[in-house]
């Protein structure tokens, strides 16, 4: 593993914060997987394990005014945005205390205050929503930037092309981040993409592009920041492809038989958490400190789990609530 050593105390503490967020995501999802396997969480559960550096690195370059639009694989993005794990876990449990009051579930985390604009379940449909949010920022002459995550599978649907074209012609402040984990469910990229490199599709829209590996969190941050700054200056959107890997199946119900153990093991050697931890140790952080950090996070997750478990289900009267907006 070629590792970069954080050069000064500031970059060490920054990396340590990224590490904390990545561990939080990993442990949150491990707890969610456990809850799912004992029937406390229903429906689909798509885990982000393996991809943590992409969400954490990307979101680190945003201000609180910026917006995030996510897919059904939204836990990591929500946590990286700083949402508290308890209402997120409660949402997974379908409780009244969930971020979407139990109406959303795993695929539909929403937090308006955090400008977390939702997990969305239709592949690619949210890409034009993100362009729309960016459109609103431009319309109101606000300098917010929107970043939109999606998979390489989504890059094949019409919404992707329409969303990118509209964003490009109107120079909208949006950064499209394709988390290429090389599989759309069970379909490997070579069976779905005529041209493997999703980022070159940016040329079709005269859009800036970038393509990076997603195992090094600070590198992701640096590259995304260039695009975010460009968007904020009014110079338009960027399509960034981040190469990554999910260690689990597409969802909890997917045994992922379409890939080899060797392939998985090779990617696990590039685990972004291991990498960050290694770099922190090279930067002078003692293993005990990192162990302690992990234990603290585990405690936080245990609390979130208990919070979710002990929270009430939504009142039955909620069934008909929120179908329409309440009067102002």
């Amino acid at each position, binding site marked *: 593993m070629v590792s970069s050593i954080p050069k000064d105390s500031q970059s060490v503490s920054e990396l340590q914060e990224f590490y904390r967020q990545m561990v939080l995501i990993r442990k949150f999802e491990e707890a969610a997987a456990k809850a799912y396997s004992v029937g406390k969480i229903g429906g689909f559960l798509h885990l982000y394990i393996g991809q943590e550096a992409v969400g954490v690195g990307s979101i680190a370059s945003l201000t609180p005014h910026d917006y995030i639009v996510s897919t059904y694989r939204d836990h990591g993005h929500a946590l990286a945005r700083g949402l508290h794990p308890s209402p997120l876990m409660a949402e997974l449990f379908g409780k009244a205390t969930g971020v*979407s009051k139990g109406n959303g579930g795993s695929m539909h985390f929403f937090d308006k205050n955090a400008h977390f604009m939702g997990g969305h379940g239709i592949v690619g449909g949210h890409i034009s929503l993100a362009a729309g949010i960016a459109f609103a920022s431009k319309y109101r002459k606000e300098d917010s930037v929107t970043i939109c995550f999606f998979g390489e599978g989504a890059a094949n649907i019409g919404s992707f092309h329409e969303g990118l074209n509209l964003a490009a012609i109107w120079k909208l402040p949006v950064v499209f981040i394709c988390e290429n984990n090389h599989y759309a469910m069970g379909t490997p990229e070579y069976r779905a993409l005529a041209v493997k490199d999703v980022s070159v599709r940016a040329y079709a829209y005269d859009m800036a592009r970038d393509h990076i590996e997603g195992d090094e969190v600070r590198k992701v941050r640096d590259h995304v920041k260039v695009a975010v700054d460009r968007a904020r200056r009014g110079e338009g959107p960027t399509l960034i492809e981040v190469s990554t890997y999910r260690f689990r199946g597409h969802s909890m119900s997917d045994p992922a038989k379409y890939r080899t153990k060797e392939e998985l093991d090779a990617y696990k050697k590039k685990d972004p958490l291991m990498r960050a931890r290694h770099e922190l140790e090279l930067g002078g952080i003692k293993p005990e400190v990192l162990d302690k950090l992990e234990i603290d996070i585990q405690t936080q997750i245990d609390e979130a789990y208990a919070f979710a478990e002990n929270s009430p289900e939504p009142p039955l009267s909620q069934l008909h609530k929120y179908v329409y907006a309440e009067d102002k």
Partner: protein
Amino acid sequence: MAVLTYREALNRAMVEEMEKDPLIYLMGEEVGHYQGAYKVSQGMLDKFGEARVIDTPISENGFAGIGVGSAMVGLRPIIEFMTWNFSLVAIDQIINSAAKMNYMSGGQFPMPIVFRGAGGAGGRLGAQHSQAFESWYAHCPGLKVVCPATPKDAYGLLKSSIRDNNPTIFIESEVLYGSKGEVPEQEYTIPLGLGEIKRKGTDITIVTWSRALSFAEEAAVILEKEGISVEIVDLRSLRPLDENLIYESVKKTNRAIVVEEGWPVAGFGAQISHLIQKNVFSYLDHPVERVTQMDVPMSYAANLERMSLPNANRVADTIREMLR
């Protein structure tokens, strides 16, 4: 009172609302420089500029999504579909995004968006351009569905739709754009969910909306000469639905028929028929009948199109049968 066309009434409603609220914008194909494919947005580009009257490429799914995303953060878009036929490529955004956003976010994201444009059947436009889709959208909770039949209603209902914090499907009748009617000069709105008795009568209730109102009115005139007195309920919006107006009328006339431009199977008339038999069954002297478009795609051939569409004679014939 001024006499305006249906198209002018819609234009006036949009212009007045946009003058009041800078968060409202109009987006769609040809809405700006071309002045609207059906000229509903005539003059609006000059008034409001390119930032608020926005021409799009042909990408319904994309710009419907732009509308929804921008509504999530407080803008109040009016998205024009050149015709509702093309809304089908955006139906994912309308149903999976717009209609459910508030619900699935636990009330965090109201959706103050209007999708509007030309709907309905006829004019020898053939199968892909001649269809009434209000039943599709009325099927989906979270949407409001509005189908005005007169210039006066078009104006008042569009203003309410624009002010509403929910996604509204506002289906204009392509055939009615040039039709004229009196529109009060004073500003007014018509609440969504309020139907209107367009004609009073005692023998039978016709429940209808949008262009089919004209078939009902024609039939009523024919039947009047035969001594049959027809009451016409114009629903104006299907969601929310003015159920009581229907029930009160049926209680009086003891018979009901639904006249609609759409297809019969799982059409909105089936829902109305169900509601009537469920709620005022004991007042009925005859099963509820329906006159709809035939259960086929629209033919181009003039005679077949004529046969396919509901019309006054079919309505009158059915009513005569019911009263025998």
